[in-house]
């Protein structure tokens, strides 16, 4: 707890891709790391829209579950099912 209040805190970066990005109106690009514990919390802080089913998540460029914990300075992304190849 001491380190959280004394250290320099970095916000969590938030990104949306493809159809999700288009569906958002002005989603937050950063959220306060103090206000969130998990990937799902990040979504709730970033947008008033409910998280649709089948949304994929990543933390620091790795696939992640909505329940995964997030930390200062993390990059969290949300995107629809992958359709490349």
């Amino acid at each position, binding site marked *: 707890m001491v380190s959280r209040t004394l250290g320099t805190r970095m916000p969590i970066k938030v990104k949306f*891709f*493809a159809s999700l990005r288009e569906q958002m109106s002005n989603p937050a690009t950063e959220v306060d790391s103090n206000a969130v514990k998990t990937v799902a919390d990040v979504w709730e802080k970033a947008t008033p829209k409910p998280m649709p089913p089948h949304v994929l998540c*990543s933390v620091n*460029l*790795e696939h992640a579950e909505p329940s995964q914990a997030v930390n200062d300075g993390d990059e969290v*992304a949300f995107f629809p*099912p992958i*359709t*490349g*190849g």
Partner: protein
Amino acid sequence: MPIAIEPQSFNPSEAQAQFEASLVKGSYGASANFIGTMRDFNEGDDVVAMELEHYPGMTEKELHAIINDAKSRWDIIDALIVHRVGKIDTGEPIVLTVVCSAHRAAAFDACRFLMEALKSRAPFWKKETLSDGSQRWVEKNTPG
């Protein structure tokens, strides 16, 4: 170049030749590849153009991880993945996967694995433009 994200149209045979030139001649007996090309139809509709979005940073990381997975599962010499992004016209290549190995079974298996893995793990998204001018995001990949 074991992976490449190409914002412009690319030539699969040149990419493959450049890749194979980096391998020792005579060291491999088998080379399997797959080329995905933009079709002029999907889900019963005429498609005239496509835009491919990706997640810079994560996409590259996933493609490298997929190649490493293939190398750990099969006895292969090396593998290449090239994937287009941006605006794509009918008939243009979208993706190229190549695997070189001593024997053919590993090349076939690993090449197919690369395609299935990238279609489920590598963040790319397709948006189609239909012949009536409307656009739609492709919602899911076809099973392989």
